[in-house]
């Protein structure tokens, strides 16, 4: 049990690190997917520990949710790339106050 949690926490921390340090929209988004995967791993581990089917179904829902996010997110990245020929988030600096 604690092995699963340890790996999951490490994956989540890696994801957070990636979000904070990467400068490309695609890589940031990949780090987010890592965070979702970490959550799913912990979820399934808990589901096994509690012997609960409910939490395992939620695991499937989370996969569907991540897929929906990919569809919208990659669409946005492509739109931005067409406009600027770059997906670096540092270039997103038109809106300031």
């Amino acid at each position: 049990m604690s092995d699963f949690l340890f790996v999951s926490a490490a994956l989540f921390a890696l994801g957070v690190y990636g979000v904070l340090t990467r400068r490309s929209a695609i890589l940031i988004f990949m780090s987010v997917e890592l965070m979702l995967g970490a959550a799913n791993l912990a979820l399934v581990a808990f589901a096994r520990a509690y012997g609960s089917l409910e939490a395992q179904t939620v695991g499937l829902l989370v996969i569907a949710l991540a897929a929906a996010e990919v569809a919208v997110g990659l669409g946005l990245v492509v739109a931005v790339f067409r406009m600027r020929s770059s997906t670096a988030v540092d270039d997103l600096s038109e809106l300031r106050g």
Partner: protein
Amino acid sequence: MIPTAILFLTGLLATLLGVEAPVRWVRWVVRAGLALALGAALFFGAEGQAFGGLFLYDGFARVAGVVGIVAGLFASLVGARYLERTGMERFEYHALLAYSVFGVQVMAASANLVVILIGLEILSLPLYALAALRYDAKSEEAGLKYFLLGAVASAVMLYGIVLLYGATGSFAVSAVGQGPLYLAGLLLVLAGLFFKASLVPFHWWAPDVYQGAPTPVTLYMATGVKAAAFAALARVVVGAGVGGLAGAVVALVVVLTVFYGNLGALAQSEAKRLLAYSSVAHAGYIALAVFGPNPAPAMGFYLFVYALSTGLAFAVLSQLDEGEGVPFAGVKGLIKKSPMLAGVLAIALFSLAGMPPFAGFWGKYLVFVEAARGGQYTLVAFALLTAVVAAYYYMKLLALAFFASAGEGGKTPEVPALAAVTMGLVGFLVLALGVFPGLVYGFFNVGNLVP
């Protein structure tokens, strides 16, 4: 229950119809669907539950849902001219709006964390696309920023939900556990919800996204999304107990929010950005309500009144905006260009500043009383002080519209009849609710947040 079903079917119908039919059909289908859902929620408020209690349409869900529908309808009715001018009217715009309002209903109508997260995604995913729909550099930037930060927030919230499940063995908001696992999970879930409700320190996306997104979309974002986020936030905080860690965290966040939101607004020179900071500050006032013994009526009333007032202000900006935003120069001398728009803007800003006899005053009064009943006198004093600062920047904007000279003869904004009637009606409602708040208070006086 029924309004949720109507909204879902409206979205589906708009999607299917949009492929073949002209866009104005879709526009009217979505408006009719939203109006129908509003009528059903107001007059056949059939409360009930479905899916074994996962979907729980109680009084509070109904109130937050109504605010969401009103926001969507408002954006649809006053946005026509903006869509035409910026050339962004496609059927997707209307269909996505309907789906997003549907998401508000789902998020508000559950006491189960997983369903709340799914509702959050249903309302957010269409919004990411809507924010980027104008297809220019600013709009794309707003869409991508909103998406990346929103995706991080929902991933953080999901991890929190999983940790809470590990600590308590349940996805219900009312499941209380203890130990580090539970506390870490609670903090992560709260962080995700703070982000959606744009509470400091999770607010930095709001000014950029509100400024870059198409103005009618900003109208909906600032009002409808807040209703859903606060419905979920109130359920989580009340479920976990305001006496514990959740209450302490919210108190800290409220102090930061009212302070930073109002001070940030002082430094702005763009009307949409100013209203974005103002909406951050208002989020702080709304959150005050959770400390009271009976938070639902104060929070519901504030959300409704705030949605009308902020919606009204953004509706005026939608008429002035040519797709480039509304710098303060664009508001100057509005009274000469269009007395009607200037009058409506005055009503909206007075109400946002919380001056009697406008509806915003009663919203503030109710949440302050509610927080005081919960014994949070320091918080109330702090919120009152910052509300005075807020009055300054609202009046500054108003003075520009009324007393500044218009400069080099800007265009007279033509307001379509439908938008004018809608704004007039909402303005009248803001005044009427300010004089007779008791007329509608009963609607907001609903019972428990947590089953």
